């Protein structure tokens, strides 16, 4: 360790790409600095990547501005380059130093380290990422050295009593790893507070049960640790079990109980976050300074997950600290390119100024935030009369009007009926929130300049800028009410409803309305979907499926009756509750609306009466229908927009669907026909459902997962192969594989026997061939794109010889189950 002055100019916490780059630049400028790293090596996140992992350098159009080199390459090559350059640059690194608190003010901060040391610095740059620290074992003796929070190599422990605490995948995988080789003679115990391993993957649970049956792992259910102590014969662990306390021998405890996001730690320093939303980032000035002067945040914690962004920020933040406040961000050329097609020949700064001041939801944003937002967005210009988007087109982006105005065609039958939306406002927000297709066609009323915010950019905006979130939510609800009720209502009519509305999160399966209840509110589904059920002879009978954008509960409001059916969430959803009396008042004021509501109600009464009347005669057909519908909802159809189903009475198992899938794309099948659940001869294979709110999109660092023009969710070629989407997908439909080499053609195979033939080539063939051709084998995420861009549509369906494979949307498909059912 290099000894520094009494007080450093800057202390950098965290040695990831952002922190490293900052430290390297501080060293290069000759600033008194220290880089504080928790572990004994640099860049722990990349260090923990699997061996040989290929690290990508996206976005490719962003220039790298750093004293360190970085280009796409293997994990080892990148880490070796950095280690060498950090050493060459005489960067002052302090390893094995975990920061526990930061106190003081700008000019004199004290950074307390675990173990009691303190470092003093004038400024602090936080580059700690978003991984957080593992949750600690908070029991007496939890700080003893026999407790550890990570297991690097299960093969290094022999003859030990090892207890794993934690029932997630990490805990199970550790326990299985420790027990894998009987020659190590370890006694492995895993503790689970509950009775089942609900948080873990099914495959892991199965392996664990098998290991338990074979006596390789002791599984203790309904058990939690109470105390760790050192007894006469070594470590002991006191357990709290269902039947009282129990003491077991224990030489080592591996605690895998999740990790705590670093937000608490950062907030304790005095840094404010944009909002209470878990996805929020710290509020930053254009120079990355937080609300606490002297504390700077860069990297993933600032909302930039990509390595290049992080490294550039490390460089920039040191430049700013060094007094170079005029430095233009490295993204300047990208923004110049984005603004180039717009009319008016304005510079990037002028456009940023116009956008920031004209658009209401952007007004509270710093220029830095706006720049970042625009990196994920697209400014676009339209001529008067040009269509921005069409009704029923899928789309999850949101538009902000910078200059000009648009008209919304509210009546599909009569395009002349329009509603204007003026400069500074937004549109397209319904698609963003509900994930459903566009509700109306929008045209430019005059020459128009808009900013189209991608779904990720818009969600980030909502999470970080509270005023923008409030504005978007309000506008969205108002428009949704107007669109639903129609009947010439104006924003003024629904204003009291919007004011009193309350957004509620509903878990999957949670009841919003219970049959027989006498509550009097009405609900609008904002996102997710609901199923309506009626209790017939003690069994819930499925009546209908309600997608986002529907409303329910108004019958009881209008006629004061009790609830006639149960409405529950098919998947995790958001509903807006509107007090019934306000709705009644609206009905009193607007007779046309009352007429419409009564007409719709009459129809539903008929259905209810029909079900009531037939309930005695309902036999197994109705049960089957209800159960099949339930099965499909359980399998994620509630959030699907387009799903592949296989009729098992027709499927001969030829796997031509998988072969067609592989041959229509780069040679990898994106579906597994045989895997997946079945019910009543309806099979839901492992293949993408194109969810309304795709789980895979949630955490894609390069924002490569997008929704395409036909509603398909696809992965663009900016994928960096991180595997987040694969982990996030609850249906297991994403695979990570390198692009296979090209196969010989069909005729060459048929006539000469060359190559592996139609369909996905075997792994060994791909590997051998790729090695021979010297192809780079970078694993990238692969999933169904609904054969976008291929004339004729999805190959799996076209290639099914018997008609077993069909693709349907949930509405269409609950009717597939209806054969022989209620109708």
């Amino acid at each position: 360790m290099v000894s520094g002055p009494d007080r450093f100019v800057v202390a950098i916490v965290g040695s990831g790409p952002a922190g490293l780059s900052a430290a390297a630049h501080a060293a290069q400028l000759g600033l008194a600095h220290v880089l504080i790293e928790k572990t004994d090596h640099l860049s722990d996140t990349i260090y923990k990547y699997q061996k040989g992992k290929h690290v990508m350098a996206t976005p490719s159009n962003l220039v790298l501005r750093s004293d360190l080199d970085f280009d796409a390459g293997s994990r080892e090559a990148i880490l070796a380059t950095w280690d060498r350059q950090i050493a060459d640059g005489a960067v002052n690194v302090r390893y094995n130093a975990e920061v526990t608190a930061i106190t003081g003010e700008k000019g004199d901060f004290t950074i307390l380290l675990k173990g009691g040391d303190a470092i003093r610095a004038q400024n602090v740059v936080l580059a700690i990422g978003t991984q957080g620290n593992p949750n600690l074992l908070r029991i007496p003796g939890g700080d003893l050295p026999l407790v550890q929070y990570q297991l690097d190599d299960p093969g290094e422990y022999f003859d030990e009593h090892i207890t794993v605490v934690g029932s997630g995948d990490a805990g199970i995988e550790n326990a299985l790893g420790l027990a894998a080789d009987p020659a190590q003679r370890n006694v492995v115990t895993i503790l689970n507070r509950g009775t089942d391993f609900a948080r873990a993957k099914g495959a892991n649970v199965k392996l664990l049960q098998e290991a338990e049956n074979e006596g390789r792992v002791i599984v203790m259910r309904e058990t939690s640790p109470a105390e760790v102590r050192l007894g006469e014969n070594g470590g002991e662990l006191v357990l709290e079990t269902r039947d009282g306390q129990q003491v077991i021998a224990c030489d080592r405890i591996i605690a895998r109980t999740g990790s705590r996001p670093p937000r608490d730690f950062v907030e304790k320093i005095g840094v404010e976050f944009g909002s209470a939303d878990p996805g929020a980032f710290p509020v930053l000035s254009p120079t990355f300074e937080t609300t606490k002067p002297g504390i700077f945040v860069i990297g993933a914690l600032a909302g930039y997950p990509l390595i290049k962004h992080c490294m550039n920020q490390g460089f920039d933040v040191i430049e700013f600290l060094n007094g170079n406040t005029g430095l233009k961000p490295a993204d300047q050329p990208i923004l110049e390119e984005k603004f180039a097609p717009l009319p008016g020949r304005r510079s990037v700064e002028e456009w940023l100024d116009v956008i920031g001041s004209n658009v209401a939801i952007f007004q509270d944003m710093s220029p830095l935030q706006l720049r970042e937002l625009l990196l994920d967005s697209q400014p676009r210009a339209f001529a008067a009369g040009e269509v921005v988007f069409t009704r029923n087109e899928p789309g999850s982006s949101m538009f902000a009007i910078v200059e000009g105005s648009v008209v919304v065609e509210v009546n599909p039958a009569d395009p002349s009926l329009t509603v204007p939306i003026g400069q500074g406002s937004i549109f397209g927000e319904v698609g963003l929130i509900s994930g459903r297709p566009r509700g109306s066609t929008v045209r430019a009323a005059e020459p128009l300049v808009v900013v189209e915010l991608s779904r990720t950019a818009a969600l980030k905006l909502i999470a970080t800028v509270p005023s923008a979130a409030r504005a978007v939510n309000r506008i969205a609800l108002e428009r949704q009410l107007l669109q639903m009720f129609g009947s010439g209502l104006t924003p003024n009519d629904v204003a009291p409803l919007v004011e009193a509305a309350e957004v509620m999160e509903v878990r999957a399966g949670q009841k919003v309305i219970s049959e027989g209840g006498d509550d009097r509110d009405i609900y609008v589904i904002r996102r997710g979907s609901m199923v309506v059920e009626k209790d017939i002879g003690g069994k819930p009978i499925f009546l209908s499926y309600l997608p986002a954008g529907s409303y329910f509960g108004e019958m009881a409001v209008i006629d004061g009756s009790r609830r006639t059916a149960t409405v529950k969430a098919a998947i995790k959803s958001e509903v807006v509750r509107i007090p019934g009396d306000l709705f009644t008042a609206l009905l009193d004021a607007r007779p046309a609306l009352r007429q419409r509501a009564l007409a719709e109600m009459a129809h539903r009464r008929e259905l209810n009466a029909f079900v009531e009347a037939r309930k005695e005669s309902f036999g197994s057909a109705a049960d089957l229908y209800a159960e099949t519908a339930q099965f499909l909802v359980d399998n994620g159809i509630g959030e699907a927009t387009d799903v592949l189903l296989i009729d098992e009475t027709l499927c001969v198992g030829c796997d031509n669907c998988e072969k067609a899938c592989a041959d229509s794309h780069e040679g990898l099948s994106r579906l597994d026909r045989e895997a997946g659940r079945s019910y009543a001869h309806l099979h839901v294979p492992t293949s993408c459902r194109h969810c309304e709110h795709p789980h895979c999109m949630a955490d894609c660092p390069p924002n490569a997962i997008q929704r395409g023009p036909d509603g398909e969710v696809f992965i663009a070629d900016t994928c960096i192969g991180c595997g987040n989407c694969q982990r996030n997908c609850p249906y297991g439909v994403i695979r990570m594989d390198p692009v296979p080499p090209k196969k010989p053609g069909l005729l060459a195979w048929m006539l000469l026997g060359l190559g592996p033939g139609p369909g996905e080539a075997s792994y060994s063939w791909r590997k051998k061939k790729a090695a021979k051709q010297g192809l780079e084998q970078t694993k990238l995420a692969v999933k169904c794109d609904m054969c976008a861009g291929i004339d004729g549509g999805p190959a799996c369906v076209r290639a099914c010889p018997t008609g077993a494979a069909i693709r349907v949307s949930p509405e269409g498909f609950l009717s597939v189950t209806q054969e022989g059912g209620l109708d």
Partner: protein
Amino acid sequence: MASAAQDKSRPADRRGLRESDHEGFLAHKRMRWLKVAVVLSLVAIIAYALVDVTPRHNGGSWLGYTLGTIGAVLIVWLALLGIRKRRMSAGRWSLKAWTSAHVYLGLSLVVIATLHTGFQFGWNVHTLAYALMMLVIASGIWGISVYATLPAKLAGNRREMTKGQMLDALDALDRQLESAAQPLGRAQADLVIAALAQDPFAGGIAARLTGRYRRCRTRAALEGLAIVGDGQDIAKVLSLLRRREAQLQQIRRHLRLRAMLEIWLYFHVPLTIALLGALTAHIVSVFYYW
């Protein structure tokens, strides 16, 4: 109880080019190809009845040539299904429609080709081509019958497991058996070891198609151990062996059904290739001796 969102039409439905209608290949487009085939056959029969060929109907009359040409074109086109199935080109074709047409037009060949012969048969290459064609059609009918009856059984037997999962389950049982058999005596352990060492799916095509594996050592081990009687260790091994046998049965049934769904193709396809050869010889010889 509620009002659905106003627009229910999804883009996929609007485009209308998708095969989302839920019909099997036999019922495709309300049996469009059955109708075509029936009309084709009826026209051929009526023409055969009305046209007066002297001295008698034969393949060399203008009607005979017409029917022969239609038949030959059909045979070649029907054989192309093998290519269509494997060539994943873009475009709005559907293999289901091809299969549907293949089935019904193939059946119509029975009428067309028979009328083409004018019921003149003999020990020659011409009749050979006809006989091969009828065999191909017969094997096709066999194929349709297994396609109609077996898929549901195949799915029922799978019980939501993939073949890989079934084999994994078998592996897991084998591992448990191996450790459970450790306390057993020499003779009994040998029974278990023999069962584990055997390839439980060997037995050739006959075993594959009947699902009966006569020298199954799992069965033998079950019978052998049952005689030995009680004891906790034996009981545990017996229960594991019973589970292994049940697992084997599921896999064997799966293999049997898959084999039955495929075996007819081992007749249908080679016979088709033979037919194409005989057909070529038939056409060449007819023109040669004209």
